[in-house]
């Protein structure tokens, strides 16, 4: 408690001193009266009446007068003090300066102490000092007889001693007075304090009595009683609050229970939703919540959802979501955890918590799960502007459990009820159906009756019909007879058709056989003529060699003729399948240019190609067949045109109104024409129609002059029909002719769209898919002479033209001379410069910026050099066993040739024989094409077992083998071959003809493979049968290789060498 609060007011203070004052006043009054009386008595002794009465009387009057006039003031006390000093002076005067009278001053001082007011000493002191000083001064100045006295003169020292002592006495008395005063004041304050605390405690007690536990009370912590009281109050407060909370909870629960008890009656009466609404209202009101929502678990959906059923103080449409999945937002989280969540200190943007209670800014939001039997029934959420407290939770705990249980029960009941209703409804509808059925049965009975009547009348009609039926039956029999006749005619027809089919097959079989029969002797002729022309033994005269060459040429022509016949018969038999694809006009033009440039150059005629710009880039056709026609027409044109003449191929949009025989062309208005015109001999009008017939030329004598089979144009016409077009001829004798191929300009169908913009496999050069490799020239740059030659032979074997250089400088000079080169094989290590430098230079030469260059290297190039090379060419080939294969692969790819070999043949069984160590093939002088010898001595002294039924063939092949120092053993058919092998023949390689009597090649090969000894002996199958499936059949039978007649002797030797090296 602060001191200030207990400063005393003037009145209080006065009151404190009342008793003291009274007591002292009483003493003083008596003392003053006594003093007056003493003065009178003194007057008797010293005859000072006047002084005694006047001064004493005046003093009394002053004192009592002041006291009377100003009773409230202390002034009279001061007057009293002064009067006491005056009395002392009076006595001193009356007794003529009796020294002892000074003691009166001490008495006065003491008297003043009783007032407990040190200030009262002051008037006494002042007057004594003034009085003594005045008299001392008067004495000093010489006034005599002041007190009629005998008192000695008072010097300064005496005065100071007097004054000092008087001061000391008065000071002590004043000090005592002060202590006394303070004591009184302190006592007074203490009393006041005690009184106050008491009053406070009384007040606390009173509030407790009145049951007020909350009002702020000033409790004195120094006062134990007060503290005890406050503790008592806290205890009482908690008790009362607990009781209130329990009461709150129990009341709420009671209300809820009452409502829940009504679920069946009230729920039905007002509807489920309103009932839930009522529950929510009750909860919200009881929780003093501002808003509330009620979500029920909805398990009907695919995923359990919380469905909003009721809202308190909130319009439903304002709710953010009516359905909330588990885990989403507050509600979903509560549903997931099955524990309540309270959110306090909600942010302003309360939306961020996706609570169902929208945009309001409540202080707290509480979401509470409804759980019955540990299963979630629903979630309630409340928002309040107040804080949720313990009692709310207690209440919700209890209430939610009851609500949840009741709702769960109700739901279960509802389900049961619905099932019951459904079954009842089913029963009712069943009964209805039953009734309907009965009614129908009745109806049926009636209609049955009616039917019976109808039937009777029908019976009558029936007899009538019976008669008609018999009539019909007779007609039917006649029809059946006719039918049978037709049937037998049909069967006959089918049989005929089958016969036809068979004869067709026979025909193609015949053709195949015939081509075999024709090609086999032809094969021998060609090979032998070649050998003769070679004149290895130098025994023939030049003329003989010339004859041999003529024989070879004639044989070749005959072979072409046979091929043409085969082609034509295939077309006529409908066996030629077309491969429709996108064909580019430019590509066709380029192909033709490549093929005929040389021919024209050689013959000294001009060759021009013109492509109409109005044409699209592509059209749909069979490219191979199309080019076959144009090739044929062009080669005819070249054939019949003399030196200085002109051959021209024009590709353009044709006039659709022209006169076409072909229906396809009549129907379409987009037609392309490929016109081949020449300035040759021309064809007379009357012969123009005839020349399209097979084996016909304008003049029977022309064939002798110009060569050719006369089948070309027939094939062209047939092919043009196949492609949906036709060939027309315009010609004038001696001024030239124009053959025009007209084809419908079919747009490219989606299947055949050329994938130009497919970045994936964009070819850098057009895929010519040419097969005539002799159109391409490869430049070999290699400083090692042997290697250079070997590469040349490799290219030769694959029918490429090639040129050779041996260092970098020559290469660049050669290329700069604009020699026709399509691809360069460049050795990396050249004597004068590195391959990389040569490569860089080549790229500088006009026309060779893009030319394919293949780097061929024996050493491992570092990655740096590789990367530098790769800036100029992609292809680097390290010299290794397979590098020749890769070289050909890469050249084919770069120049767009088809692969020659479809697949690589791998021996299925491991070779028992040890691979013979091969010496590097010794390379002899490169031969011109067609040489029937190998450049290698590898095959020398090898043993070949030749199985063929045709003696001519045996003779021809033996001749080749012998000229290469290869030993030959022969057998005339499969059977004989097997016998010889069983006898112990050990050939290095077997050449097996397929078409043989007794046992054919397939069977023979299969049998040989079954013999353990010959499982791995290389076998090359040889057949003239130009049918596609043969190849696979041969390989399936166990052959390692397949070659067709007429035999390319060089290829045969090469294959033999390869197979023997591999084994």
């Amino acid at each position, binding site marked *: 408690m602060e001191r200030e609060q207990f400063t005393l007011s003037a009145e209080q203070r006065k009151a404190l001193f009342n008793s003291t004052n009274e007591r002292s006043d009483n003493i003083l009054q008596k003392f003053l009266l006594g003093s007056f009386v003493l003065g009178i008595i003194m007057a008797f002794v010293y005859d000072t009446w006047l002084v005694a009465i006047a001064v004493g009387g005046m003093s009394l009057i002053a004192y009592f007068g002041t006291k009377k006039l100003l009773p409230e003031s202390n002034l009279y006390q001061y007057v009293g003090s002064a009067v006491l000093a005056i009395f002392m002076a009076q006595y001193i005067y009356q007794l003529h300066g009796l020294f002892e009278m000074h003691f009166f001053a001490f008495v006065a001082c003491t008297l003043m102490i009783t007032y407990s007011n040190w200030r009262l000493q002051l008037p006494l002191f002042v007057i004594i000092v003034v009085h003594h000083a005045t008299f001392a001064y008067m004495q000093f100045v010489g006034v005599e007889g002041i007190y009629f006295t005998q008192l000695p003169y008072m010097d300064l020292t005496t005065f100071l001693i007097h004054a000092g002592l008087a001061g000391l006495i008065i000071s002590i008395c004043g000090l005592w007075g002060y202590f006394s005063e303070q004591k009184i004041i302190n006592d007074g304050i203490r009393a006041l304090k005690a009184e106050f605390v008491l009053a406070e405690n009384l007040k606390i007690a009173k509030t407790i009595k009145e049951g007020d536990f909350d009002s702020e009370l000033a409790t004195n912590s120094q006062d134990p009683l007060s503290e005890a009281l406050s503790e008592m109050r806290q205890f009482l407060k908690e008790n009362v609050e607990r009781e209130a909370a329990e009461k709150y909870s129990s009341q709420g629960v009671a209300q809820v229970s009452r409502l829940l008890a009504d679920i069946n009656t009230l729920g039905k009466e007002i509807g489920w939703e309103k009932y839930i609404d009522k529950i929510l209202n009750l909860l919200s009101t009881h929780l003093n919540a501002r808003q509330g929502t009620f979500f029920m678990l909805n398990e009907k959906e695919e995923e359990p959802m919380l469905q909003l059923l009721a809202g308190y103080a909130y319009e439903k449409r304002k709710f953010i979501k009516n359905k909330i999945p588990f885990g989403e937002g507050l509600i979903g989280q509560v549903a997931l955890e099955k524990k309540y969540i309270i959110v306090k200190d909600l942010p302003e943007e309360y939306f961020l918590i996706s609570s169902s209670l929208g945009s309001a800014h409540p202080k707290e939001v509480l979401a509470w799960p409804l759980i019955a039997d540990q299963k979630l029934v629903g979630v309630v959420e409340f928002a309040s502007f107040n804080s949720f407290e313990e009692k709310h939770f207690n209440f919700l705990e209890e209430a939610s459990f009851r609500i949840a249980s009741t709702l769960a029960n109700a739901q279960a009941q509802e389900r049961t009820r619905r099932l019951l209703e459904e079954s009842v409804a089913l029963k009712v509808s069943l009964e209805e159906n039953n009734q309907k059925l009965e009614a129908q049965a009745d109806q049926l009975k009636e209609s049955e009756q009616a039917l019976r009547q109808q039937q009777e009348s029908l019976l009558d009609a029936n007899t009538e019909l019976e008669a008609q039926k018999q009539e019909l039956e007779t007609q039917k029999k006649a029809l059946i007879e006719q039918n049978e006749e037709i049937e037998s005619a049909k069967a006959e027809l089918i049989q005929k058709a089958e016969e036809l089919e068979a004869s067709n097959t026979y025909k193609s079989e015949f053709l195949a056989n015939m081509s075999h029969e024709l090609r086999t002797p032809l094969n021998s002729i060609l090979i032998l003529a070649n050998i003769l022309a070679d004149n290895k033994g130098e025994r023939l005269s030049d003329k003989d060699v010339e004859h041999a060459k003529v024989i070879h040429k004639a044989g070749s022509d005959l072979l072409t003729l046979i091929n043409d016949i085969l082609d034509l018969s295939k077309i006529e038999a409908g066996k030629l399948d077309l491969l429709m694809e996108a064909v580019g006009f430019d590509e066709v033009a380029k192909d033709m240019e490549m093929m005929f440039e040389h021919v024209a150059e050689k013959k000294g005629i001009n060759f021009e190609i013109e492509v109409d710009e109005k044409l699209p880039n592509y059209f749909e056709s069979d490219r191979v067949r199309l080019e076959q026609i144009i090739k044929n027409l062009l080669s005819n044109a070249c054939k019949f045109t003399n030196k200085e003449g002109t051959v021209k191929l024009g590709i353009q949009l044709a006039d659709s109104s022209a006169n076409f025989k072909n229906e396809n062309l009549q129907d379409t208005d987009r037609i392309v024409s490929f016109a081949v015109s020449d300035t040759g001999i021309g064809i007379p009008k009357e012969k123009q129609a005839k020349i399209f017939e097979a084996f016909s030329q304008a003049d029977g004598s022309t064939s002798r002059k110009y060569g050719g089979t006369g089948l070309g144009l027939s094939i062209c016409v047939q092919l043009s029909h196949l492609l949906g077009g036709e060939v027309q001829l315009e010609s004038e004798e001696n001024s030239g002719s124009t053959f025009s191929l007209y084809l419908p300009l079919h747009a490219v169908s989606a299947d055949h769209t050329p994938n130009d913009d497919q970045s994936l496999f964009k070819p*850098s050069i057009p895929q010519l898919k040419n097969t005539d490799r002799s159109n391409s020239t490869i430049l070999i740059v290699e400083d090692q002479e042997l290697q250079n030659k070997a590469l040349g032979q490799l290219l030769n074997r694959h029918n490429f033209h090639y040129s050779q250089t041996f260092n970098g400088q020559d290469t660049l000079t050669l290329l700069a001379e604009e020699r026709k080169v399509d691809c360069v094989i460049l050795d990396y290590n050249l004597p004068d410069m590195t391959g990389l430098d040569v490569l860089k230079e080549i790229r500088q030469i006009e026309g060779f910026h893009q030319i394919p260059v293949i780097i061929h290297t024996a050493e491992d*190039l570092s990655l740096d050099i590789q990367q530098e090379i790769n800036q100029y060419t*992609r292809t680097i080939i390290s010299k290794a066993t*397979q590098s020749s*294969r890769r070289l050909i*692969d890469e050249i084919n790819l770069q120049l767009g040739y088809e692969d020659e070999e479809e*697949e690589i043949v791998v021996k299925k069984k491991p070779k028992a024989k040890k691979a013979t160590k091969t010496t590097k093939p010794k390379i002899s002088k490169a031969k011109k094409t067609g040489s029937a010898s190998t450049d290698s001595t590898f095959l020398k002294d090898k043993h070949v077992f030749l199985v063929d039924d045709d003696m001519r063939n045996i003779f021809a092949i033996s001749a080749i083998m012998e000229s290469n120092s290869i030993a030959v053993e022969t057998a005339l058919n499969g059977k004989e071959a097997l016998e010889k092998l069983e006898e112990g023949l050990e050939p290095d390689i077997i050449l097996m003809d397929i078409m043989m009597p007794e046992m054919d090649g397939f069977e023979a090969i299969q049998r040989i493979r079954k013999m353990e000894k010959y499982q791995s002996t290389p076998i090359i199958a040889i057949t003239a049968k130009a049918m596609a499936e043969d190849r696979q059949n041969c390989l399936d039978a166990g052959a390692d290789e397949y070659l067709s007649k007429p035999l390319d002797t060089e290829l045969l030797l090469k294959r033999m060498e390869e197979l023997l090296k591999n084994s």
Partner: protein
Amino acid sequence: MTQTQSIDFSKGTTAPGTRVSSQPRIISGLTELFRDPEYFRLIRQEIISYLETFSHPKVWHVGCSTGEEVFSMAILLQEAALFNKTDILATDTYQHRLIQAKNGRLSTRMLEQYQDNFKESGVKGKFEDYFNTSAGYLELKASLLQRLNFFRHDILQGASPNTFSCIFCRNVLFYYPPEKQVQILEKLLDSLSPMGFLVLGRVEDLRFSPLKKHLKILRKGYSIYQKTSF
């Protein structure tokens, strides 16, 4: 691989409405050393010697599983003295298989089978030249193992990692639906240098594939192809 041979993932196996991931559900990890020795014989005879003509061959094993095929190829390359200049990348979708593969360890349970395969593949030398067998398991020699690169890579999602001279993708395609197969094949082709080899599983025949025209078959019945386009 033809359409008819492919497994139809759109039917029957999943309930309607459920999400079907583009990942095949099970990718078999079945593998062994020189699995299908005839295959490796062919690879040894044809591919390895051809790879010698590449100055810096690169080999990619797609779906390498636990590495047996990678080890087999490494052995063939080592035999041809080609191993040290060849870059070998092996990828799989499943990390745990890669971890196993990186160990270079194989159970000895199949040792006999492995040795038979090894012999039948025609590899010269001894099995022990390439494996340590002392510790209760087979362990690829460290000189081989340390040059093998195993990485996690999803052939469907991931980009092509490089241009390769030879890509193995055996018995991976048929776990994917046909349209994904085409996607994967296009990616593989794109990752192949011209004249590079694509080694597929035996049944994964490209005869009827639109991509056939960019490839030639090395040997029928083996599904080993060589890229003949740019």
